[in-house]
């Protein structure tokens, strides 16, 4: 059993399981949307002193903070007890595209060159880790949700605003991947 679960899970298993997560959260009185936790954390940190946007009762959202704490633990469990016996199989085209950008694929989850504490001090590391994170936080709140809130929850509920947001995600992602990353990484 463990050896089967330790293999990488195919998309047709993972996707429906994500729907199941959405169902469990709805059924228990929550909803599936991760980025609103970042707003709660701003409120807990005293953000209300600086903006009305952080003056709300974050205590109603503690359940969601517990959910993401679980997501951290789940990552720990998966990487320690369900460790994959095989390397990540990335498409050959991506491997060679990234090679041209001086990013080597090592079979791991993240490029080893800059996703480390020492890499953080390099230009590539600072841009991917710090600037990337900032854009994710700013953009998610401006758009009113992230991949979970818009692409999964919103689209499942046939929300046109979520479709616009997801189109935006891809416009931004394609611009970064095809125009900006070559400038940043080369």
């Amino acid at each position, binding site marked *: 059993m463990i050896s089967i679960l330790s293999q990488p*899970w195919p*998309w047709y298993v*993972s996707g*429906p*399981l*994500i729907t199941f*997560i959405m169902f469990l*959260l*709805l*059924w228990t009185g929550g909803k599936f949307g991760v*980025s609103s936790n*970042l707003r709660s954390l701003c409120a807990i940190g005293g*953000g209300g002193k600086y*903006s009305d*946007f952080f003056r709300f009762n974050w205590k109603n959202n503690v*359940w969601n903070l517990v*959910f993401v704490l*679980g*997501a*951290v*633990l*789940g*990552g*720990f*469990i998966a990487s320690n007890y*369900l460790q994959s016996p095989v390397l*990540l199989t*990335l498409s050959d085209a*991506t491997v060679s*595209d*990234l090679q041209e950008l001086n990013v080597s694929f090592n079979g791991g*989850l993240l*490029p080893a060159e800059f*996703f480390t504490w020492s890499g*953080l001090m390099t230009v590539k590391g600072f841009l*991917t*880790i710090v600037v*990337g*994170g*900032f854009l*994710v*936080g700013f*953009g*998610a*709140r*401006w*758009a009113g949700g*992230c991949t979970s809130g818009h692409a999964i929850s919103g689209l499942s*509920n046939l*929300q046109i*605003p979520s479709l616009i*947001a*997801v189109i*935006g*995600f891809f416009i*931004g*992602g*394609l611009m*970064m991947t*095809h125009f900006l990353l070559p400038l940043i990484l080369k």
Partner: protein
Amino acid sequence: MKYAKYLLIGILFGIIMTKSEAISWFRIQEMFRFQSFHMFGIIGSALMFGVPMVIFMKRKHLNTIGGNPILFEDKKISVSRYLYGGILFGLGWALSGACPGPMFTLVGNGFSVILVSLGSAILGTFVYGLVRDKLPH
């Protein structure tokens, strides 16, 4: 322990995100280069089940385990906030290779430097709160 169930659901979510490799920077690159079906398959199959599930739940007026009706709110119609916010989010998603859920799960996978990404995402949310009145919505 009313929160214990959310911890368990979160643990399951973290395991799914890790085992599906959706938390991988490389997989996100592959997606934005349209060089594999993997990420599209994950999101697409989630929706293939998600759309009929939400229709069913709305029709049946299902209740939560606490006995309250499960509510689905319609999002306010507008273009600018979703489009501009979405574009900024997409720029960040392709750059950092992770959206907020995977960031949490990557920390659990032992990539402690991703705590800096999370801190930066919180800062981004905070700055949005400061300037939101000046942005189109």
